């Protein structure tokens, strides 16, 4: 019975993402990032060279390669993607609590943990769906502008970036459950992620934190895989879900 309830809830979440234009917005934004990354990698050095020459400074940038395109791609997804997904998902629980629709759903035979798990799964699904055109756009442009993109390594980069976004979304879901409203949830999410990013700069311990996933993804392009940030990501996802469940359990509509 819970499977049918989960399927019904998941269907409702995806329908909501589509009708509220959150899904198309995420698709378009990440596609733009995917396409823009190799373009920036290819043309930014020449642009800089011409700008430098215009002010009489001699500047000879190195010849860009597909690795630069991957670097731009990882950077933009981990920065702009982070902002975009936090903005799109910060109200997932907070807004439902405020509008009273959470009380409506939870008056049905729906365990609160299931309600949260489906929220998380649907936000991950949106991230995964949005990554597809982004990755395809990036791969196509990179292959067009450069040569030698190793597709298995590119796939591993995308999986790392997806896990990075899923970690961000888990933290956002937790903040959305704890925060009283959409704005508070968004502010809490950014604050918590920036704190994690700061901690990730600490040598040794920081390597285990999920903000290092983008870096790990880039390293995987060269064939070197570090498992350390995956541990941190797993712990962050599990603890975010547990904290959100504990908070929602105490909530009285």
């Amino acid at each position: 019975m819970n499977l049918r309830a989960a399927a019904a809830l998941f269907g409702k979440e995806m329908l909501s993402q589509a009708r509220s234009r959150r899904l198309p917005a995420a698709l378009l934004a990440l596609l733009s990032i995917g396409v823009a990354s190799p373009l920036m990698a290819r043309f930014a050095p020449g642009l800089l060279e011409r700008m430098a020459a215009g002010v009489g400074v001699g500047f000879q940038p190195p010849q860009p390669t597909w690795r630069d395109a991957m670097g731009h791609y990882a950077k933009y997804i981990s920065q702009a993607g982070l902002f975009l997904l936090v903005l799109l998902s910060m109200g997932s629980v907070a807004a439902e609590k405020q509008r009273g629709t959470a009380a409506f759903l939870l008056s049905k035979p729906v365990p609160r943990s299931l309600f949260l798990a489906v929220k998380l799964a649907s936000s991950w699904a949106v991230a995964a769906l949005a990554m597809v055109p982004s990755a395809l756009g990036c791969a196509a442009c990179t292959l067009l502008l450069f040569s030698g993109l190793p597709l298995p390594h590119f796939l591993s980069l995308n999986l790392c970036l997806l896990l990075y976004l899923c970690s961000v979304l888990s933290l956002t879901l937790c903040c959305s459950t704890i925060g009283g409203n959409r704005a508070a949830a968004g502010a809490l999410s950014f604050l918590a992620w920036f704190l994690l990013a700061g901690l990730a700069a600490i040598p040794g311990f920081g390597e285990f934190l999920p903000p290092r996933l983008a870096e790990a993804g880039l390293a995987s392009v060269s064939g070197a895989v570090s498992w350390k940030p995956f541990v941190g990501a797993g712990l962050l996802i599990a603890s975010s879900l547990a904290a959100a469940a504990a908070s929602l359990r105490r909530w009285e509509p």
Partner: protein
Amino acid sequence: MTVVECSGLCKTYEGGSVKAVDGLDLAVESGSVFGLLGPNGAGKTTVLRILTGLVGSTSGTARVAGGEVSVRSPTLRRRIGWLDEDPRFYGWMSGRELLVLVGGLFGQSRIEAGRRADRLLAASGLGEAAGRRIGGYSADMVQRLGIAQALMGRPGVVFLDEPCAALDPAGRRGVLDLIAGLREEATVILTTPVLSDVERICDTVAVVHRGSLLASEATPELRRLYAPPVLELEMESAEEARRLRAHAASRAWTLHGEGPVVRVEADDVPAARDALLKILAAHGMAVRRMEVRGAALEDVILRLGGEFP
């Protein structure tokens, strides 16, 4: 058979300083429409929220549809339907989509949920609006949809919290008729602050005031004991009203009212009306208006010994 039973139910807030429900005992028979009547703030909604497991009680016990009520229990929720006082649905969904979603939450397949949704939408007069966005529904359409969604899981007991709140007279009539027809399908427990609503559709009424039960009676009995019709006179002036009260004081009537208004409660209202007309004529008192009207909730609560408001 008793389907809802609670004993010594209490709910306090703010460390016990605010008593929303104070030792409530209640029993509801199956197949009836049961009204919880009381003014705003009487604790009606809190009682319903406890019985539906939405909030926990501070003390006391409650059983609904054969099972002990426990807070946030999905098992309890499979047996009940619930409509909030201010129902909030997804405005971007159509009425049919919402009901199919609710059916899914009760474990129904999409086909089964679709069939039941169509039947309930038709029964609640929303057949033509089934495909329209809920955001465009009027207040009474939302209430009707709320009742339909409360029935999607084939519940044994349906709890409706002020289902007629914020409805115009036509909408109120339609929704009450819809609720009256539910007793064949489920036991209905509804709250309302309007006496005429319970008189119209409820088989049994419990009067709740300040979290306590003042009375629980079959509706005709409640009407007879606590809500008899009253004679209301509006005199030309407060002085005239005072004179009337003085002349009527020796009668076996109960007199209320303020200013120029005099309300007369009597066992035999027609006889009291004739006697009053004689008093008015004999003493040359001018009256602007004289009518027999039904009792209001405040009359019932006053008769039951409660304070109002």
